[in-house]
């Protein structure tokens, strides 16, 4: 065996010695994922306060409202937990787990949409706004779709900003995948709260606006992950 110099080279030691400030060990993946819970709950509560809960809560019952939203929220935490594993060199999960989680998240969103619509096919945007605005939303439903889509994406963007800070030391070999996972988790967590406020349950609205917002946050997360991953490799190349 030709094991060269078991002592670190001087250049490396100099680089290390330049920055030896103490750091705190990273929390476990589940603890990282749970860090989003307070902020996600705060954003969801603000949305509920601003828009008000949907008018057909009693028709849907607790299972299709709070139950379905809780399931989505748990799934969102799971996606971020997988992203945290993906960001750890020795803790990666099998690829099948990632595929399974992505498929499960998509199926849950579609299933909840269809169940909600079949139980209460609400298509009137009854909001706590002046009647004139409600009438405008009724005649131009795309405005409601646009508002829900953009609003959910922006709210999810706040969580993504939190994740991009939490995962700033990420060592993911596939940073785009890790970013897409926490982005999808952010979108799903926001949708879990937003769907309780949104008064429209038609599939085109739920999937076209809310579903599209989850896809948008996943893409946003993937782009941020890709950017920070390439930045990390550039810094490495420059320093080396």
């Amino acid at each position: 065996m030709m094991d060269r110099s078991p002592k670190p080279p001087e250049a490396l030691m100099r680089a290390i010695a330049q920055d030896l400030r103490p750091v705190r060990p990273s929390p476990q993946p589940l603890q990282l994922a749970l860090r989003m819970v307070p902020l996600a709950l705060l954003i969801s509560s603000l949305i509920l306060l601003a828009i008000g809960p949907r008018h057909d809560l009693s028709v849907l019952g607790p299972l299709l409202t709070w139950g379905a939203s809780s399931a989505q929220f748990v799934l969102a935490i799971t996606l971020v937990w997988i992203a945290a594993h993906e960001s750890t060199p020795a803790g990666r999960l099998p690829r099948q787990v990632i595929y399974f989680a992505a498929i499960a998240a998509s199926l849950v969103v579609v299933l909840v949409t269809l169940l909600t619509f079949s139980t209460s096919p609400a298509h009137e945007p009854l909001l706590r706004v002046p009647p004139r605005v409600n009438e405008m939303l009724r005649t131009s439903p795309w405005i409601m779709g646009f508002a829900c889509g953009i609003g959910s994406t922006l709210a999810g963007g706040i969580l993504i900003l939190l994740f991009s800070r939490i995962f700033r030391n990420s060592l993911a070999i596939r940073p785009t995948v890790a970013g897409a996972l926490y982005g999808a988790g952010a979108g799903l967590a926001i949708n879990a709260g937003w769907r309780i406020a949104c008064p429209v349950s038609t599939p085109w609205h739920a999937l076209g606006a809310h579903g599209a917002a989850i896809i948008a946050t996943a893409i946003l997360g993937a782009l941020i992950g890709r950017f920070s991953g390439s930045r990390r490799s550039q810094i490495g190349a420059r320093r080396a």
Partner: protein
Amino acid sequence: MIRYQGGSLEAFQEIYTQLAPGVRRYLKHLAGESEIADDLLQETFLQMHRSRAAYNPKYAVKPWVFGLARNVFLMHRRAARQWAKVHESREDLPEFSVLPEADRLGSKDEIRRGIARLASDQAEALLLHHEWGFSFEEIAGMLGISAAAARARASRGMADLRMALKSIQRARA
């Protein structure tokens, strides 16, 4: 690692002294060239330093650093887009000691040649387990596969190595 996270330079030196030779051989196996392996070794420890806050004491240090080395290699490969070139330019055979399970089957040179003939994923799992002593669970975490898949790759690698050795020995005879 905890002492190193607390700011101890000596702790870093200890980690380097203990792990650098093995990591270098692993990188040499991945990259196929000593010069690239030496560069990647330094880059691995620089990355480790920059990301020392990302280490969680739940994980053993050795698989974490080896996993990091693998990441550094893959980043290098991606950046340079030289995957084919790296493998085509493999001039010398990888450096690793002869596997304990295989030393009865052939000479050191034959075993090295046999391993060089294996599929890269099988050779990697085989060496991580037999040469560097990682458990299949640790290999699974490093490669992003299940422990069963890691075991299957190493086992298929060993079977293929036996066949490769037979073919090398036949050719010599």
